[in-house]
């Protein structure tokens, strides 16, 4: 019997059987995720997104390589790890999805409705260009340090709004983001819940989105994550690129500052 086994046996004396069974299940889920990470289907979205990024598209037949994501026209490397940020041309704080929509309309000449036609894939043959573009741009920040600025007053304003929204309780169930994500070491059913009010929890969550969702067969963006959280909060439908979506993204991205970005990830 080695030291690890001895320690385990000792611990087992103090741990109830149900906790052991649960930990075993959690460990199995962690192993399953690690296996999946080796061959993440998100790469399919990244590759398709890179193609869409480079292609001359829209009524004006312009490529998104003219789009400025904050580091200069066409600079993709490290851009996601510095978003959301204030953009003087839009006079607004934008996250990546909002900035991409902005470039599709202003540069490529799409109407707002055309650009927003399919924000999320349907789990079948109708894939979303926006999810693919987000996957590609995010992949170009893998290994970058999260560095979200609060220099501009509108960036500070977005962060403060995000913080206020995080604690905002409403709806039929009185839920806020903080209901599930305000304490350490909690679970919903068997799913671990990150405490997003701490730097550690925010980093763990934010740096692993966008992610391939195995249960949905789609790559999902951070805006989708917020959209689906609000659905479960029993709120109405969150609008893509809205002030609430950007403010909450700002709050979590900024709280993750200093962490190493590591997405697209993979989730159950």
């Amino acid at each position, binding site marked *: 019997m080695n030291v690890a086994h001895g320690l385990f046996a000792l611990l087992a004396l103090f741990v109830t059987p*149900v906790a052991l*069974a*649960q930990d075993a*299940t959690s460990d199995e889920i962690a192993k399953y995720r690690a296996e999946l990470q080796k061959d993440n289907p998100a790469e399919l979205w990244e590759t398709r997104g890179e193609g869409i990024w480079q292609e001359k598209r829209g009524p004006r037949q312009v490529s998104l390589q003219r789009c400025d994501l904050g580091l200069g026209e066409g600079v993709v490397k490290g851009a996601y790890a510095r978003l959301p940020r204030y953009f003087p041309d839009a006079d607004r704080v934008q996250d990546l999805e909002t900035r991409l929509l902005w470039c599709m309309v202003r540069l490529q000449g799409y109407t707002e409705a055309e650009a927003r036609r399919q924000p999320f894939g349907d789990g079948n043959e109708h894939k979303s260009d926006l999810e693919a573009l987000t996957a590609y741009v995010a992949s170009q920040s893998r290994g970058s340090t999260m560095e979200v600025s609060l220099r501009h007053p509108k960036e500070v304003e977005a962060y*403060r*709004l995000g913080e*206020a*929204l995080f*604690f*905002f*309780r*409403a*709806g*039929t*169930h*009185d*839920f*806020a983001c*903080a*209901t*599930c994500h*305000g*304490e350490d*070491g*909690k*679970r*919903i*059913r*068997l*799913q671990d*819940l990150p405490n997003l*009010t701490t730097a550690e929890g925010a980093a763990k969550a934010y740096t692993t989105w966008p992610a391939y969702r195995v249960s949905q067969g789609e790559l999902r963006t951070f805006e989708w994550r917020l959209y689906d959280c*609000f*659905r*479960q909060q*029993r*709120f*109405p*439908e*969150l*609008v893509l690129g*809205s*002030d*609430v*979506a950007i*403010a909450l993204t700002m709050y979590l991205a900024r709280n993750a500052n200093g962490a190493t970005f590591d997405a697209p990830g993979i989730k159950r």
Partner: protein
Amino acid sequence: MPRLGNCLCLALSALLAGGCTTATHEGDVAASTAAALNASFVPAGQAGLDRLQQDDTQRWCTAAHGRPLPQDVAAKIESANLATIRYPADGHLTGDWRKGERIAQEGRGKQFSDDPSGPAGANCYACHRLSATELSFGTLGPSLYQYGKLRGNSVGVQRYTFGKIYNSEAFAACSNMPRFGYKAILSEQQIKDVTALLLDPASPVNQ
């Protein structure tokens, strides 16, 4: 005079180089939050924009920001919510624990993606351990395993349990638990069934 309040607040915070914590400032944050919410959501399915309107309890709990509540505020929230509880007119506080178990397992209800014609579940297992056999339970709330075995099945315990499910805020201000009766998530009969799940000696909760 919100404008004057603003000027004063800005001037004071500039002088003191600290955060402005006057009631006016908190009012401004609430107003800008409400404006952003109304512009950022659209009605979908059964979820209208009215769901973004807070009642007093939600407003007070939001203002607490997860910090412990001042005692007077907690007392105010609990007494206001206690007054909302409607006990069954027929005097029967418990129902069928088998139906209660199904309600405790069911997570659907009130989401914009849910069919509004079907009954909502309570999803108790999302946050609580209840039976010894269901391992897929959450830990946001305390374990309720052997709830009835530990407390007995007196009318007093039945009354407290029915009331707690009906409106949790009556007994623990700013609890994370939804107010299932007050917010019409569950029917009176469903609350009786969940009460039975917790208290019936034959229920898996009490094995």
